[in-house]
């Protein structure tokens, strides 16, 4: 009986919390459907009188090139980051290198640096490689900036893997890369997924490099476009909020897609003994 009460109360609490969590989103949605005049009234809880779905059309038109670019850039860069990072995480935790711990810390410290101050060397670096204003250049920079974080997260998850697992694999004559691919990755899938989510968000939502390293709209990611929607000496919040809703679709899809692997990964986890 007590348990029932507990479940009921927690269910209620969690639901209320979820509703509270959605309140800012509610403000986003109502604003995205208003006219500029209604937005100026600054009554964020009020519903729009005449939902302006055209706002979404306008926003989408302005954003579509950016969406395409962001898809290419973010997905590739994230994949590379996780790949490089998890390999490195495995290498640092599974091989007992003497330099593993200091190297790990070198990597960790680097994740704390706000990259804005090295904007200039970053630009110079890409310029010498001739990769300014190209997909490859942006992907390269995002990988450089985020792979350390990917290493950090995946490495920490890998630390939890019991060594018996690896020993058994080696006894079976399993080569490291095969072990990585066939055993380590499936077992630590929740960890990898979490790392993927975080890295993807960092890359997708990034704004400054997307402007500084591009010329013109050809490879510009979507966040600079989103920032442009509001305008500088005008204020089109309604279009920008519609744009925000549109741009958030991609990460949400990524989350949902990854969520499936999250569950299946847990099933494969060592929890079943």
């Amino acid at each position, binding site marked *: 009986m007590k348990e029932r009460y507990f479940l009921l109360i927690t269910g209620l609490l969690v639901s209320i919390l979820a509703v509270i969590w959605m309140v800012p989103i509610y403000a986003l949605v109502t604003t995205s459907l208003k006219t*500029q*005049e209604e*937005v*100026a*009234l*600054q009554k964020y809880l009020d519903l729009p009188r005449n939902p302006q779905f055209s706002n979404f059309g306008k926003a989408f038109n*302005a954003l579509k090139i950016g969406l395409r670019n962001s898809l*290419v850039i973010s*997905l*590739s860069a994230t*994949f*590379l980051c996780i*790949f490089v990072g998890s390999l490195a995480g495995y290498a640092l935790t599974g091989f007992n290198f003497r330099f593993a711990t200091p190297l790990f810390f070198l990597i960790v410290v680097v994740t704390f640096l706000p990259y*804005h101050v090295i*904007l*200039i060397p*970053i*630009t*110079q670096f890409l*310029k010498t490689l*001739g*990769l*300014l*204003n*190209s*997909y*490859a*250049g942006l*992907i390269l920079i995002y990988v450089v900036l985020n792979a350390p974080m990917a290493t950090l997260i995946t490495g920490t998850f890998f630390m939890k893997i019991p060594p018996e697992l690896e020993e058994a694999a080696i006894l079976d004559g399993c080569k490291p890369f095969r072990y990585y*691919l066939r055993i380590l*990755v*499936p077992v630590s899938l929740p960890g990898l997924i979490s790392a993927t989510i975080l890295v993807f968000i960092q890359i997708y939502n990034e*704004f*400054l490099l997307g*402007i*500084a390293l*591009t*010329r*013109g709209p050809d*490879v510009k990611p979507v966040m*600079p476009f989103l*920032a*442009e*929607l*509001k*305008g*500088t*000496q*005008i*204020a*089109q919040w309604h*279009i920008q909020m519609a744009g925000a809703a549109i741009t958030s679709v991609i990460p949400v899809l990524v989350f949902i897609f990854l969520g499936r692997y999250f569950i299946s990964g847990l099933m494969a986890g060592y929890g079943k003994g």
Partner: protein
Amino acid sequence: MRKFVNLGITLLFGVLFLGLVGIALAQEKENEFIIFHYWTAGGEKEAIDALFELYQKRNPGVKIVENPVAGGGGETMLAVLMSNLAAGMPPDSFQDHQGNQQKDYIDAGYLEPVDDIWAEANFEARINPMWVKTLKFGGHVYSVPINAHRTNWLWYNKKIFDELGIKPPETYDELLEACKKIKEAKPDISPLALGTREKVWSTYLYDMVLLTTGGPDFYEQANTGKIDFRNDPTFRKAMERYAALIPYIYPWHATKSWDEAGALLKTGEAAMYWMGDWVLGYYLSIGMQPEVDFSATAIPKDIWMGHADTFPLPKGAPHPNNARDWIRMCTTPEAQKAFNLIKGSVTIVNDVPPDVYPDPYRQRSAHDLRTLRAVCDGFHGGMITPAFGSELMDILTRFLVDQDVDAAIQAIAEAAERTNLAEACSWFWEQ
């Protein structure tokens, strides 16, 4: 799992291929015109598009590559420009202001003089002499201004003014009077709106009290650090006047952007707004009617204060001829008119008659610009240095909360010393 990896590898190759294509494309020295600006949406975008159209007609073979740099009226622009310039990749032109804002680029050797373009267009004779003072450095000019935004406008809710029988203020004292009257009659309204989420607007009021307390000469001296901030009595009086206004200012200004603060006139929470002429376009877009819902008056009425957006010529621009033609084009009345009619500012050249503007405010602005004494506003106009301005904003937004005149004066004096304000502005007086 396999599928995932396969997808990843395919993506990878696809991307590498695209990247290589990108490199290939970049190598071609296309006939382009690369320009950075921050007029990114709506009316402001239409204005720059009008200029692009004109330019395209003059130069049909040139591909215009515009780089809108969104982000708070120029903050991001500087970071992007700095990294591009330091990496040796200047654009063909970019949106800049004047005075100290532009001087940093010149000191770093990033700009090239355009004296010949000015001479060709007889530009100096066609603009208010104040602009020449703030655009000429060591005898050379490096850019062409495209517009003139007036910032000493006081916008007010006409209905409230008519109701309470208030005359539109034209001096500081009349402004304070109006504030008091409004507060008495309608205690729920804030007489003066303000938005300091972007802190720079706090300096607009600072400019106003300096200008109205000491006159234009004092104003210029104060903003270029030529006065003894700690001991100057006029400066103290100006700060006290600023403090006197604070009780009448909308209390929650720190949460509002400039447009949200302006909209308070529509929501009925404020009665007056001190802001530049771009707010006119905003008011029109939110359904307010000029001379019915709102009107505007200039304080002080015998001075034109404002700033201009300019296009400089970077040194080593990738397509110098295209860049120079753009700058040349901007000196023509045709281009000035095309841009400004849509933009909401007025032309900087005096040879476009004021009656081309559809609204009375810009007509007045254009008329005043060609007849009155003019000064540049502090931050955007480049009277103060960006470094000093950055600190001034912090001091003023603090001052707006604690109203401590002594602390503010002390802090401003220290900031001026720390940023070498007087030395940095000495070019202004050496003309």
